[in-house]
């Protein structure tokens, strides 16, 4: 058996005693069993301090054993703030405490706690904001002292992903109500997903005591769990936390590294209730814990949590705790019942028979700390003299204090989608209201605590959910009147101590006086108190502080209990990692059919919209030379560029020409079949948004190309407009169906001649701007005699499945002419030499054609095109800027960069849009926006290239290269 505190079976239903494991905590080897959590294994070995508190560095240990509090947060390598009472142990695990200097047991920073009187709530705001700049001085110190775990920048990347789930009925919570609901819904035929954050189903049935003999829970658990696990309609998701409930029953679930997105027709909330702490001095010491935590230690992990226990009681369940403790061999020192006249429940009756000491109308007013506040060595038992008043009393020796003074519903989830919690003065706990549509609640989350009623209520919720999902159900299950809803919570389990350390919020080390001070400072609303004091803002998000804070604030401000509500509850329910939120990242990328050929040729690829395209071919350290060589190849010999990324759209039907006339600025009605024509598209504001070429293959058939990044936008715009125009035109995006290359250079015709038999490539038969269909290398092809780079050239469009074969054929046929693939960088230089603009680079979202000297592409004779009217307005006004070609003849001048500013005097008038050093022209050339008065040929303007650094540029005509277009039309 591992650990001196380990109990014999059957205690410890979660641990496998045949699988011993060893892990490290604070550098010490710790033994445990498979199924143990870090906290349970440590407790079995009598290690009770797990971490240090956020502000005062107080030793903290297990409070709930349910992962609901911040006391148990420990550090794992690469993972801070891991709940030790949830995290399973494994061989080799290396855990440590958090927020200490030196060692966990002997923290050098513990002195901060001695100063607590000088660190009241709001002291940050009062102490560190003056003089100006003081906060900058203090912040690093404060942040170093306060805090949780540490994020490791060396943490390895994990694999996170997401998954969608669907169900007729989602049941959140695998306790008796949830199990019952799932069974009823599933029996009706519903497809049910049952979610529970624990590794085992059963909820409180696994550890709580519902009868004096302690037999009912086990029997009921076995019955319900077996039925659920064997039901074909129920999908059990254990170890899964439901972290958010969003509109239309969209639940976010987290299990390990995966987030599930569950959409359910109906949701049954059966999340149960959390025990709430009593407030007294030193109520945060290790081994001051919830009664249910002690029961979890015993029943789930087989760990004995103490030897002499005091049970602080305010309900019958506390007596069940006492019975369980006694069964585990723990001496019951006293049961201090806050109630003056306790109800005679079955469990208290059983305890009465034992003859143990029971003190009614009493409380623990102080837990007495052992050495270093690392343990409990006793308690002061005091008589309650009034609301929250308990002084003096009897000192008792004990090493365990269990608190069972009330519950709060785990009702956070529905509050994410409109639900609300309200303090009910009768039951002295929160009640859940305004459940989301198609949401149902059952069990202790709705205030029902009697086991029979809980199971029946679960069945009724499952029945209602199944019926709402459309399933044929029988009669509605009945629920007993006796729900056990009242008498569970004491209305004031708060006993402030003159020396403080009476914690309301363990996460933030907030004491009773802190809350009262916040009210006294004028923050008289619970939301303001929260923000001023930070109550409820720690890792546990107020699960154990909200109820007592509401009580204190309501009392301090004289408000009615009927109005009392906790602060707004927002998702997520528990902390979630960035990895879970990010999940598996999907970033679709598009490759042309020739992509691998580019890689094989040494291309440096670049992202171009959704595409990967070759920037240039060669090593990065010879980039500039590679680009120059590619440019030269096109100017002197022949080059080939992959232009498969260009958009391709088929426009077909009787109204095809009319459609293009409306969409684009030029005229297309009379475009001859077999010819291509430039396209420019404007938006409704008249701004240029795309360009391309249209090829007319038939009176009713145009093939339109678009820019690479604009294809999907153009297609969408076309569909949108034609949905209104209703022209007899079909618009099909065939971008991905065609691979395309641009073959350019003086030797182009010689290369292509080898591969074509059914197309006459001569100038006479196939003049500039003509288009043909035929075959290239036996591949069906569309040939466009166009040239963006200013040389003899053909664009060849072929079915994409044959694109790589076309590339191979061209490279083979061009070998004798030293054919060379060229990339986008060379293309940019080549087209700049021809003065061709790139939409999106030489234009922006506001550029209209007159600014870019492109009014030549506007037909003035047609009645309408998109953006036509706006352009009329633009043209009726004086230009504010104009795109010009410029040259810089200084051979030593640097090449201006895109977006370098152009000036007129001290005024910014425009920017450089493109610039390059042209080997063919022997100088720097570029395009830039300047003031209209600077746009005359020969005018000069300054370009600002840095702080007090300017270049003088001269406006020159475009095209810069081959102004008579002799080379491209040869």
């Amino acid at each position, binding site marked *: 058996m591992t650990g001196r505190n380990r109990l014999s079976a059957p205690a410890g239903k979660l641990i496998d005693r045949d699988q011993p494991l060893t892990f490290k905590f604070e550098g010490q080897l710790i033994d445990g069993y498979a199924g143990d959590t870090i906290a349970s294994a440590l407790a079995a070995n009598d290690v009770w301090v797990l971490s240090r508190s956020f502000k005062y560095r107080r030793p903290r240990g297990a409070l709930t054993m349910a992962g609901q509090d911040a006391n148990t947060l420990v550090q794992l390598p690469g993972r801070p703030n891991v709940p030790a009472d949830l995290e399973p142990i494994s061989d080799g695990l290396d855990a440590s405490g958090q927020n200490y200097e030196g060692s966990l047991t002997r923290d050098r920073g513990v002195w901060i706690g001695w100063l607590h009187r000088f660190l009241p709530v709001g002291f940050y705001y009062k102490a560190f904001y003056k003089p100006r700049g003081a906060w900058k001085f203090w912040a690093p110190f404060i942040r170093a002292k306060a805090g949780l775990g540490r994020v490791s920048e060396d943490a390895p990347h994990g694999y996170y992903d997401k998954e*969608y789930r669907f169900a007729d009925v989602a049941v959140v919570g695998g306790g008796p109500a949830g199990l019952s609901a799932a069974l009823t819904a599933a029996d009706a035929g519903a497809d049910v997903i049952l979610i529970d954050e624990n590794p085992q189903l059963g909820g409180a049935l696994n550890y709580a005591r519902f009868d004096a003999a302690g037999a009912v829970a086990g029997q009921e658990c076995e019955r319900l769990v077996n039925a659920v696990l064997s039901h074909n309609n129920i999908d059990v998701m254990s170890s899964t936390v439901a972290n958010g409930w969003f509109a239309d029953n969209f639940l976010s679930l987290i299990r390990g590294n995966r987030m599930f997105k569950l959409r359910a027709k109906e949701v049954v909330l059966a999340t149960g209730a959390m025990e709430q702490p009593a407030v007294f001095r030193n109520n945060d010491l290790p081994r001051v814990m919830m009664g249910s935590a002690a029961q979890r230690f015993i029943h789930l992990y087989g760990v004995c949590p103490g030897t002499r226990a005091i049970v602080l009681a305010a309900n019958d369940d506390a007596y069940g705790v006492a019975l369980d403790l006694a069964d585990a061999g723990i001496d019951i020192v006293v049961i201090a019942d806050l109630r003056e006249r306790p109800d005679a429940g079955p469990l208290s009756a059983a305890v009465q028979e034992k003859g143990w000491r029971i003190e009614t109308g009493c409380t623990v007013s102080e837990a007495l700390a052992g050495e270093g506040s690392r343990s409990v060595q006793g308690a002061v038992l005091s008589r309650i003299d009034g609301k929250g008043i308990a002084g003096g009393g009897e000192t008792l020796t004990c090493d365990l204090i269990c608190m069972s003074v009330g519950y709060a519903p785990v009702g956070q989830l529905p509050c994410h989608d409109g639900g609300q919690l309200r303090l009910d003065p009768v039951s002295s706990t929160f009640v859940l209201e305004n459940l989301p549509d198609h949401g149902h609640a059952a069990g202790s989350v709705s205030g029902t605590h009697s086991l029979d009623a809980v199971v029946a209520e679960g069945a009724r919720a499952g029945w209602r959910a199944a019926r709402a999902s459309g399933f044929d159900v029988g009669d509605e299950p009945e629920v007993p009147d006796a729900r056990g809803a009242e008498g569970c919570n004491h209305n004031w389990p708060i006993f402030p101590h003159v020396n403080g350390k009476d914690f309301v919020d363990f996460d933030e080390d907030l004491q009773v006086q802190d809350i009262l001070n916040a009210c006294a400072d004028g923050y008289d609303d619970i939301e303001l108190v929260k923000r001023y004091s930070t109550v409820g803002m720690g890792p546990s998000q107020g699960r154990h502080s909200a109820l007592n804070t509401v009580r204190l604030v309501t009392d301090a401000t004289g408000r009615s209990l009927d109005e009392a509500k906790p602060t707004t509850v927002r998702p997520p329910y528990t902390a979630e990692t960035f990895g879970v939120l990010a999940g598996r990242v999907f970033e679709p990328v598009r490759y042309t059919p020739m992509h691998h050929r580019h890689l094989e040729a040494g291309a440096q690829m670049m992202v171009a919209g959704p595409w990967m395209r070759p920037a240039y071919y060669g090593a990065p350290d010879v980039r500039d030379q590679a680009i120059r060589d590619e440019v030269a190849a096109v100017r002197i010999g022949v080059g080939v560029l992959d232009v498969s990324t260009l958009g391709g759209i088929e426009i*077909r*039907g009787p109204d095809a020409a009319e459609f293009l006339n409306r969409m684009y600025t030029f005229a297309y009605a009379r475009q001859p079949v077999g010819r291509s024509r430039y396209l420019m598209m404007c938006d409704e504001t008249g701004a240029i948004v795309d360009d391309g070429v249209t090829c007319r*293959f038939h009176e*009713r058939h145009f093939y339109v190309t678009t820019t690479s990044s604009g294809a999907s936008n153009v297609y969408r715009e076309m569909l949108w407009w034609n949905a209104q125009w209703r022209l*007899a035109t079909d618009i*099909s995006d065939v971008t991905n169906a065609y691979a395309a290359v641009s073959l350019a250079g003086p030797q182009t015709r010689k290369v292509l001649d080898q591969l074509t038999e059914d197309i006459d490539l001569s100038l006479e038969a196939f003049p500039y701007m003509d288009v043909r269909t035929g075959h290239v290398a036996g591949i069906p092809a569309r040939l466009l005699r166009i040239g963006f780079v200013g040389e003899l050239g053909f664009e060849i469009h072929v079915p994409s*499945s044959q694109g790589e*074969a076309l590339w191979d054929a061209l490279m083979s046929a061009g070998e004798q002419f030293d054919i060379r693939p060229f990339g986008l960088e060379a293309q940019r230089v080549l087209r700049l030499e021809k003065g061709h603009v790139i939409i999106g680079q030489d234009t922006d979202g506001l550029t209209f054609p007159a600014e870019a000297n492109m009014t030549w592409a506007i037909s003035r004779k047609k009645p309408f095109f998109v953006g036509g009217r706006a352009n009329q307005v633009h043209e009726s006004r004086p230009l504010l800027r104009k795109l010009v070609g410029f040259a810089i003849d200084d051979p030593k001048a640097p090449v201006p960069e895109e977006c370098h500013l152009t000036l007129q005097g001290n005024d910014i008038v425009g920017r450089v849009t493109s610039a390059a050093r042209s080997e063919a022209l022997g100088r720097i050339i570029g395009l830039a926006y300047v003031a209209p008065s600077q746009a005359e040929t020969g005018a000069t303007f300054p370009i600002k290239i840095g702080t007090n650094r300017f270049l003088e540029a001269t406006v020159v005509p475009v095209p810069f290269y081959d102004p008579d277009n002799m080379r491209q039309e040869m």
Partner: protein
Amino acid sequence: MTSVTLNPADFTRRSPVYRELRDAGARFVESFGGAIAEDFMESAEAEAKSAAGLALADLSLLPHFGFKGRETVDWLRSQGVDVGDQDNVAYRQEDGVLAAKLAPREVLLIADIVGRSDLCARLADSASIEEEVEAFPVPRGDGYFWFLVLGESAPAMFAKICGVDLRSSSFGELEIAQTSVARMNVVIVRCDLGETPAYHVLGDVASASYLWACLLDAMEEFDGRLIGHGAIRHLAGL
């Protein structure tokens, strides 16, 4: 079973994922104008057996062809194609071809699983711009990759990358989902092979390699594997 294989790059038509298939050990045979993965050096029976869990195959070189236009459905019916009125349903033809009705004016024809039918080719030839019929061919055979995902675990695998419920209880035989998988648009057509659930996945051929990798990644959890056309024929009882 022979170990002789062909080089897909020796053919003019090439699958967008032929490198992935080759690197995974595919044995290629000539078919549909290119080289298709016949098997992965296992018998068709063995591969088919493994497909019961989860498997992926590339059918991109098999005929698939689209038609669009306001007269598409009437024209296809006039050509003898059985197309119903309901959208997002695939209509199975007598020769096994599926006429997937994507929209009132759009139909995607996908070949029978072994590509024996000549319907796609015949219709592609018949549809001429000269006919003045507003039923226009769309070269989906080149624009769309075509993958086949098979096996009982297919819906669970899809659940990791697709927001549509593709479980048998929600997504029946011959239903179509035009949706997003791993953030890219695809058409999913369910058409089981015998007792084996089968999902045809068609989408942008330019992102074929991307989605192929995503599918393999998602399949790993379920021990999914690649299978060849031999296994598919076996599953289809052919």
